[in-house]
């Protein structure tokens, strides 16, 4: 067959392929939007409620990633900035499904939410399956917190983990040569026992981060630190218990949270909801990015930063 004809057949095949992909994209998009359980009633114009989602471990992932899609705390802050700058947004519902994450990333989200709260934009936190530790920290910046009966929340506390592989390495006959400029340079090293002085140093960081956590939660909840301290021992609890201890304001679903946000903003019950929208292809790229991302590669290779102090529930 002539080369030009082959080329044309290839072009036609590519056109057919792009049409098939587009049809699948549109179909998935329709089905993706349907079962979300979020009723987007009324036209999507005019004043309404914006939604921001905090899902999974909270980390500061600022780079664009392999496919240029931002994720992590920075993308949540970007989304909040978008909502802040949009005159149609009269209230924000923060949907949280997270066991927490790194201290700095959580604090950045808290501060951003606090900034919106100071601008008198009503914030309602809706807690999903888990909103523990850093997840609850972020929620505490909101004016009103709503959780499901079975939501796992609480876990107010700070944790730092580091495996001690010394005995295993000794069994394998592996030693580590460490040349360091100061005695604490390899603090939290997995290759040796932790010294009492190092433990004290890390404990200071933990205590300082814990005090900040407690202070911010008390500020957000309009309570005294002393009221929260008795239950701020890392314990987790369900929605019902959290309500008893006044960690949340009410029990309810995501839709109840939307209604509450509308009510707080003085909007009509059918005011529109502005949710984040990602096309299925973007979701796919995001998943691929997660698999191919530098963070995962580092983790797989064992180079993950071991100095992570986290507001995180670690069951």
């Amino acid at each position: 067959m002539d080369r030009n004809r082959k080329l044309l057949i290839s072009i036609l095949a590519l056109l057919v392929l792009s049409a098939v992909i587009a049809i699948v994209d549109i179909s998935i998009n329709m089905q993706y939007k349907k079962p979300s359980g979020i009723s987007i009633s009324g036209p999507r114009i005019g004043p309404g409620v914006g939604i921001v989602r905090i899902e999974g471990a909270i980390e500061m992932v600022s780079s664009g990633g392999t496919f240029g899609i931002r994720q992590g705390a920075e993308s949540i802050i970007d989304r909040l900035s978008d909502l802040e700058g949009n005159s149609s947004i009269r209230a924000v519902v923060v949907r949280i499904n997270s066991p927490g994450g790194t201290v700095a990333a959580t604090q950045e989200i808290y501060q951003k939410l606090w900034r919106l709260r100071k601008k008198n934009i009503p914030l309602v936190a809706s807690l999903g399956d888990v909103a523990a530790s850093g997840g609850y920290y972020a929620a505490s910046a909101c004016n009103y917190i709503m959780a499901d009966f079975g939501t796992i929340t609480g876990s107010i506390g700070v944790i730092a983990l580091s495996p001690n592989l010394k005995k295993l390495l000794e069994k394998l006959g592996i030693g580590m040569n460490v040349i360091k400029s100061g005695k604490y340079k390899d603090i939290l090293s997995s290759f040796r026992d932790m010294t009492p002085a190092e433990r004290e140093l890390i404990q200071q960081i933990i205590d300082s981060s814990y005090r900040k956590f407690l202070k911010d939660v008390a500020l957000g909840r309009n309570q005294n630190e002393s009221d929260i301290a008795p239950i701020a021992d890392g314990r987790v609890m369900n929605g019902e218990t959290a309500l008893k201890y006044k960690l949340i304001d009410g029990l309810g679903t995501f839709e109840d949270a939307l209604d509450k946000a509308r009510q707080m903003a003085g909007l009509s019950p059918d005011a529109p909801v502005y949710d984040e929208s990602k096309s299925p292809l973007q979701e796919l790229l995001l998943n691929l990015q997660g698999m191919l991302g530098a963070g995962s590669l580092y983790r797989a290779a064992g180079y993950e930063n071991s100095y992570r102090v986290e507001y995180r529930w670690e069951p």
Partner: protein
Amino acid sequence: MILSEIRSMRWTDFFMHALLDPRALYRMVGRNEPRGFLLSFAVPAAVAVVDIITHSLFGRETSFFYYKITYGWILWFLLIFFRTVVAAALMDMASQFFGYKGNIRELVIVLNFSLFPEVFILPLAYIFKIFRFAPLFFYILISMGLTVWSALIAIQCISEMHSASIGRSAVIFLFPILLIGVTLILAFILLAILGVGYFVG
């Protein structure tokens, strides 16, 4: 016979010439070997399907999309077909004004094949949609570019058909648009006069 025609792959030359050498496209159409009349309607059919998919990609999708992609494209294809036949008839009339021989059948084939670049709107606009880089702007820009490309193919084919200059071919090509435009303006003016007369009287 049809199968042997398909296997010969000579039909691909219509599409290749439409993209690269419109004058050669007309020469193929003029020779009527291989026959391209029926094949030429595959192009407006493809354009109808691509148009519907592209519009759905850029709009808010509902389950009505399934109706559009199964039956709706036929209606859209019929509209393109009707538009092509009317345009070909008017271009043929314009050609005869200039003293050229009328040939509406070949004009229909040529106009059908000249639409071929428009199927590229889907993959090109889709790239901007995926990366969310001003998708609507580029959709309009690419659409305009592809329309101009289609027009250039048709004009070159008309030029080859009548051995006419590019300028004169362009006038023949634009004649239906001008005629319909002037007619619409006159109709609007008449309606306006009628409306004013009705309300004043």
